[in-house]
């Protein structure tokens, strides 16, 4: 066992998968430059030395290299493609949505696209274009699996499961959870370290996780919001309110078994999402629960319907926090 942050755990996970399967390779911007950063958040640091020729440093061309990853995948390679910031996925989205996600269906089941995509998200003092949470734009794409691990154990286990999956898997990672060090450390970072076993392990791509049990209300969140929801639950426990915190973790497909069971148990659900309330993943979770659990009371805590602002006072108001989550639960159980 060793204690690791998400960036380190992902780096080890990628290393182990590249050692296990020679078809695995990495492709992305600034991921394999000697003396460079190992990607925007150090995840691929040093991999180019360990795996010469298998860490492909690309031009700044997200549409192009995501397409290249799809093409390599359909021929049997197993690429891991990453963008420096999730916002850049818009540039790559033709290849992700029209090719990676659809080729299996439109070929009548003849093509498989075993690729992993990684994208950092979250409001972190970078203004509007290096900040937004992109989950909502991809969770409704048939043929694509979408995951969002909130801690190092899940990140490593889901990464490894994604590499071994024969389908395209998009993994969202939160900039404040990486635990990146040195020049790439993030102000305002939250501890997402885990005890990581020495032995090989994977985490399923279609299961939510109960982070804390309780019977008064269910709080559903993911990524950074899972941490803030846990902070809120600790606060609420002091007030004798027992919140159950569910890390949705698998955003497409959603784990309805776990989500519904918790909702039925508490009868009250707070869905927490970093990102505009309108059209969010939270809206899908709310609708899906409402269809499945009659009489359920559902509240959403999300960002206002605005681009991500820069100045800290506004950015902090944009991002839901533990106090807002706790307030929502209090109102619900009152």
């Amino acid at each position, binding site marked *: 066992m060793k204690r690791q942050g998400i960036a380190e755990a992902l780096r080890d996970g990628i290393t182990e998968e590249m050692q296990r399967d020679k*078809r695995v*390779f990495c492709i992305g911007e600034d991921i394999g430059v000697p003396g460079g950063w190992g990607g925007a958040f150090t995840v691929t640091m040093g991999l180019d030395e360990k795996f010469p*020729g*298998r860490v*492909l440093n*690309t*031009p700044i*061309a997200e*549409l*192009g*290299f*995501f*397409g*290249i*990853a*799809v*093409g*390599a*995948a*359909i*021929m*049997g*390679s197993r*690429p891991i493609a990453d963008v420096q910031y999730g916002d850049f996925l818009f540039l790559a989205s*033709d*290849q992700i949505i*029209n*090719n990676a996600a659809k*080729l*299996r*269906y*439109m*070929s*009548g*089941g*003849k*093509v*498989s696209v*075993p690729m992993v995509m990684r994208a950092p998200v979250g409001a972190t003092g970078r203004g509007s274009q290096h900040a937004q949470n992109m989950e909502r734009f991809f969770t409704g794409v*048939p*043929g694509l*699996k979408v995951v969002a691990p909130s801690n190092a154990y899940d990140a490593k286990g889901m990464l490894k499961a994604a590499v*071994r*999956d*024969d*389908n395209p898997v998009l993994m969202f990672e939160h900039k404040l959870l990486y635990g990146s060090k040195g020049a790439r450390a993030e102000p305002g970072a939250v501890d997402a370290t885990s005890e990581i076993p020495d032995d090989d392990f994977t985490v399923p791509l279609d299961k939510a996780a109960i982070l804390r049990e309780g019977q008064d209300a269910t709080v559903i969140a993911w990524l950074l919001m899972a941490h803030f929801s846990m902070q809120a639950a600790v606060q609420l426990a002091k007030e004798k309110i027992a919140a159950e915190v569910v890390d949705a973790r698998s955003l497409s497909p959603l784990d309805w078994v776990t989500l519904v069971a918790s909702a039925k148990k508490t009868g009250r659900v707070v869905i927490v999402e970093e990102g505009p309330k309108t059209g969010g993943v939270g809206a899908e979770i709310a609708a899906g629960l409402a269809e499945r659990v009659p009489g359920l009371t559902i509240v959403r805590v999300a960002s206002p319907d605005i681009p991500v602002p820069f100045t800290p006072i506004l950015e902090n108001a944009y991002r839901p926090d533990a106090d807002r989550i706790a307030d929502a639960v209090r109102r619900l159980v009152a």
Partner: protein
Amino acid sequence: MTSGNRPEFLLGLLEKMIEIREFEEGVKFLFLEGAMPGTIHQCQGQEATAVGVCSALAADDFITSTFRGHGHALAKGLTMQEMLDELFGAKSGCCAGKGGSMHMGNMDKGMVPGIAIVAGGIPLAAGMALSFKLENKPQIVACFFGDGAVAEGAFHEGVNMAAIWNLPVVFVCENNLYGASTRIDLVMKNTRISDRAAAYGFEGETVDGNDVLAVHEATTHAAARCRTGKGPYLLELLTYRRTGHSRRDPCHYQPKDERRDWFARDPIDRFAEQLQVDGLIDPDGVERIRAAVTERFEAAVEHARRAPQPTLDDLETDIFVTKEMA
């Protein structure tokens, strides 16, 4: 001109081009009479590009295609039957009725389902070639696209990465002068598309795309370069679409004299005449090929009309690979 090539090879080129023409004409009729669902984008007049390129590839080489892919598919070895089944939406179609006209393909025959987003197949082809290179496989990719694709960012990005990594891709631009109804000189200052290759640091050439042997020879040369690790090659094949961009397009934007000039350079007529001059076939022989192809086509149509359609049980299959990985 045809000397040095075996007669059966030359006659095979002619037969394949006639097969594509008859297939397209037959399919056009079926669409217009309402027998087939969907829409079509056809390639009458462009048979020499598909046949010239694919005849220079190995069976396990791959091609990527576009929404105008019927000719590419036949040239790469798909059967009229699996394609007609697909056009009729049958479960026995090459894409089980889920692809349709714009997504013709068969991985077992080296053809990825057609990528119908303009230029969307270009980075894809580069990636396929990257996989071959990473795994030390001898295969190459021929990537078909039209003149319209050159304006897309995907062209620039995919071609550039193929260049810097010396990937084995022959980029095949079928320049038929029109992107839908828009003529190329309205959308590019330099209409010589092969010039683009130099900007990325590799070779390109412009070839008479209505001369099947010229296309075959240029592709053979390009493919050989690719196979020896010299990186990509850009072939610009000048050709002309005799029919509409899609069904029911009367082509009013194509000037009459331009159509007349290109029709006079029809790839099938030209090649048939050449083979006649060389004494390899006579006019009756050409007609016999046409009649035999038509007979096969009609039989395939009858079969496709009766081929079972998918059931609603098939609606939600083929989204994901569900088996456990080894």
